[in-house]
């Protein structure tokens, strides 16, 4: 594999990272809202939230992307393909992150909140000062896992015409006919990116160890 070919793939890989990164972050905040909505006593909020989670976890990402890609223009939103792709990825990861966050918040020991009650913290203060940091720490492994899943899933946006790593390899292949080298190289790049993310996750977990060995 020549240097420039690999360079093109690396560039595309960077684009993959950007797309994935934006989707993960957007998905986190959307997931946070959905997670809160699922716990709401108001059924008009809780039910659609649960349906949202059920839909985006029950339908293959590829189908979600194709649907959103074609639906947006119909709704009057003529956006570039990459935007449709990011919307699709974000909504998909939001559903999974909502579930992870639900687990995280449920994992905060009740006693800690009782102590906060006795100390006089209002529910809002408890949410910000106690529940959020601890829930986040509990969710961290699942968050890292989700980041890796999105990075791999981003390969599907090649189907809606976004030139990220997979699409770049495909395009190069149509003119060069070297599928083994190109796709293997792409695979290696994905693998390395995922490893880096996993390592970053472990690092974050260690930073938030709060004195535990």
């Amino acid at each position, binding site marked *: 594999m020549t240097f420039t070919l690999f360079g093109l793939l690396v560039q595309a890989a960077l684009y993959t990272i950007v797309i994935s990164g934006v989707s993960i972050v957007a998905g986190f905040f959307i997931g946070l809202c959905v997670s809160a909505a699922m716990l709401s006593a108001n059924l008009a909020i809780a039910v659609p939230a649960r349906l949202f989670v059920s839909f985006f976890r029950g339908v293959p*990402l*590829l*189908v979600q992307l194709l649907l959103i*890609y074609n639906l947006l223009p119909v709704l009057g939103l003529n956006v570039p393909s990459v935007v449709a792709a990011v919307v699709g990825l974000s909504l998909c990861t939001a559903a999974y992150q909502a579930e992870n966050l639900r687990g995280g918040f449920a994992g905060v020991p009740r006693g800690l909140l009782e102590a906060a009650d006795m100390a006089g913290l209002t529910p809002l203060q408890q949410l910000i000062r106690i529940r959020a940091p601890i829930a986040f720490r509990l969710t961290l492994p699942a968050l890292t896992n989700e980041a890796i899943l999105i990075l*791999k899933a981003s390969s599907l946006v*090649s189907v809606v015409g976004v030139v990220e790593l*997979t699409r770049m390899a495909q395009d190069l292949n149509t003119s060069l006919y070297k*599928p083994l080298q190109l*796709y293997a190289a792409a695979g290696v790049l994905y693998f390395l990116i995922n490893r880096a993310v996993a390592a970053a996750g472990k690092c974050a977990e260690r930073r938030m160890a709060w004195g535990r060995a």
Partner: protein
Amino acid sequence: MRRTQNGLGPRMRFDFALVASRLPEILQALGLTLMIWIVSLAAAALLGFLVAVGRRFGPRGLDHLLGAYVELFRGTPFLIQLFLLYFGGPYLGLSLDAIPAGVVGLSIYGAAYFSEIFRTGFEAVPRGHVEAGECVGLSRAQIVRRILLPEMTMLILPATVNMAIILLKETAVMSVITVPELTSTISAIGSEYYAFVESYSLLALCYWGLVELCGWLGRLAEARLSRYRFATS
């Protein structure tokens, strides 16, 4: 993928007559999807089990080798794996048609995940139960068959159902390498009539229904098997 000005075809409302007329085709594609799914699921579970057993009970070198396989196939996108197999395979003397390539690809992908599920399962069975078996004189194989497997089955059931659902959804990816399964068939129908939004909506509903059904069956199985719940604490 062609984008039209307006994704909705000449008929603005979703046309059930249209679906009815193409129903045989759709059902055939659904049948193919289910067949690919079941075969890959079984193969992946079997292969994954063998890998887990090899890693746990085999020599150190095997553990490292299989570990590398698992890391590699869990760390790269399924689509890339399919491309390598389907487009790259012929260059290595392995020429597979689309459907076999899909099945083989999904099996190998799934096996990597199943091996981890089984490995966790092995470790989740309390050491004491295995030691009790050793003390009584059971052989390695007998311990696996009579102690580990039954106890494991209950422990790993949720993860297994989850994985089965994941594999079902991944069958959609095979449409990219021209396997005539559900996604590719309904996409094609949608293109024919310029009814993209309707066709993809239908497609989404189909998968959603299948996944919900699968999840329900899984919960049923869990409830049934929990009658044999072992005290593991």
